[in-house]
């Protein structure tokens, strides 16, 4: 007599499935480049397509699953574009192929479509793995890949300045500043010829040529230039012509008054009229150079008993040359030491005329001496002259006064 049957099963561990997306054509990746100058995609997917493979890995903890690379048994494979089955999209017809072979790359999609710079497509894969051990079906879904295109011709916009990116201002070499000083002090008569001659590459009035290139062609119009002061890593202040050290901003040049700068970093940005997205930019900086110099009194004559006043003038030299009108750039303070008064301050300037009695000089051998000397420093950057309300002092033409 046969007993009742008791059916028992093998108790398989469930399948662990992992999906990762791999680009099988790394040199034809998801990101294309479009060169509108020659109307070409690089690479052109109609010639060298991109291929993406949803790599399906499956295993069971009990070792009962032997098909670790599980693509070959995928069924119900579908690729989606922005969430829509690609087979239903007319504009993708004949522009893709899905690998239906029984091989390891089953499910891979080959894309022959070039994507315009204005387009972006999000693709993902879904398929089904059948687990015959447990009689179950597992839906697998890949991560998304984004197809997009970079417009290289737009990115090829570049800014250039016709100057060093580190501009150094050395007041000792500034002939224009010297010219202004001489005119202001009545040492010479102002002439446009002399002013023009003094305006060279070392002048405080620095015109920095700006050129916007599209690829290798210099643009003549269709953009504006903005100038920013760099305050920190992500902190900028827009500067306009007439404010601070900015004399002028045009599409082809930026003019700065370097007398008003000790050290500053700037960012130039080109705003292209027909594109809000692209803003080629360039950073440059301005530094003031503090050149070594020597300065000393020149009157070596003694004091006659009847002298009441003493005159002296300072001689300054730098880099092997006598500095002309040194008070223009060097703060020269005249001082004397005597037996009774040390550090007596007289005046500031290239020369001095002081009353001898003020120095405390004596009339006996041990106190009838005087040390005359100057204390000097390079003048700092200029600042605008303002009153207590912050209003600018100007001349009759509205030109703002600066001083240092």
């Amino acid at each position, binding site marked *: 007599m046969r007993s009742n049957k008791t059916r028992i099963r093998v108790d398989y561990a469930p399948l662990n499935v992992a999906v990762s997306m791999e680009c*099988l*054509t790394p*040199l034809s990746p998801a990101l294309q480049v479009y060169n509108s100058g020659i109307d070409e995609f690089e690479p052109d997917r109609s*010639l060298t*397509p991109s291929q993406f493979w949803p790599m399906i890995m499956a295993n069971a903890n009990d070792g009962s699953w032997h098909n670790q690379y599980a693509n070959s048994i995928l069924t119900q494979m579908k690729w989606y574009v922005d969430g829509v089955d690609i087979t239903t999209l007319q504009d993708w017809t004949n522009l893709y192929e899905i690998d239906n072979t029984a091989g390891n790359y089953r499910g891979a999609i080959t894309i022959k479509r070039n994507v315009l710079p204005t387009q972006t497509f999000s693709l993902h894969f879904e398929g089904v793995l059948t687990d015959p051990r447990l009689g179950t079906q597992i839906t697998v879904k890949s991560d998304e890949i984004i197809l997009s295109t970079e417009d290289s011709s737009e990115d090829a916009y570049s800014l250039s300045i016709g100057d060093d990116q580190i501009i150094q201002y050395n007041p000792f070499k500034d002939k224009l500043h010297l010219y202004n000083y001489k005119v202001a002090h009545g040492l010479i008569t102002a002439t446009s010829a002399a002013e023009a001659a003094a305006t060279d590459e070392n002048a405080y009035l620095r015109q920095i040529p700006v050129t916007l290139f599209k690829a290798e062609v210099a643009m003549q119009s269709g953009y504006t230039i903005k100038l920013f002061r760099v305050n920190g890593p992500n902190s900028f202040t827009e500067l306009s012509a007439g404010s601070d050290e900015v004399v002028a901003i045009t599409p082809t040049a930026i003019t700065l008054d370097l007398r008003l700068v000790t050290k500053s970093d700037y960012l130039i940005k080109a705003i292209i009229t027909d594109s809000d997205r692209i803003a080629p930019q360039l950073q440059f900086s301005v530094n003031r150079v503090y050149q070594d110099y020597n300065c000393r009194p020149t009157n070596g004559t003694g004091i006659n008993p009847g002298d009441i006043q003493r005159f002296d003038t300072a001689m300054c030299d730098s880099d092997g040359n006598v500095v002309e009108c040194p008070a223009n750039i060097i703060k020269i303070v005249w001082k004397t030491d005597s037996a009774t008064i040390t550090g007596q301050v007289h005046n500031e300037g290239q020369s001095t005329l002081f009353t001898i009695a003020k120095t405390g000089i004596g009339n006996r051998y041990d106190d009838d001496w005087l040390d005359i000397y100057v204390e000097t420093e390079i003048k700092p950057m200029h600042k605008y002259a303002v009153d207590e309300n912050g209003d600018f002092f100007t001349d009759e033409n509205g030109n703002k006064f600066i001083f240092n």
Partner: protein
Amino acid sequence: MQYVIANRGKATMYGINAAGHRTKDALIVLHEKELNVVPGPTLADKVRAVDGVLYSASEIKQALQEGGWQ
């Protein structure tokens, strides 16, 4: 960007994965950057190494119109 119609066997010999590429019999279409793995000082040398012919984008489009390309 320039393109090359190369010998598929030579290309794979230099490590180029034929997957996803357009092929016809023993030929394969590559772009110039894919030849970086092929030894040779110039692109022309690399093209020769894979028994290839160099084309511009427009030229190769014309060449592929002959048909038979996968």
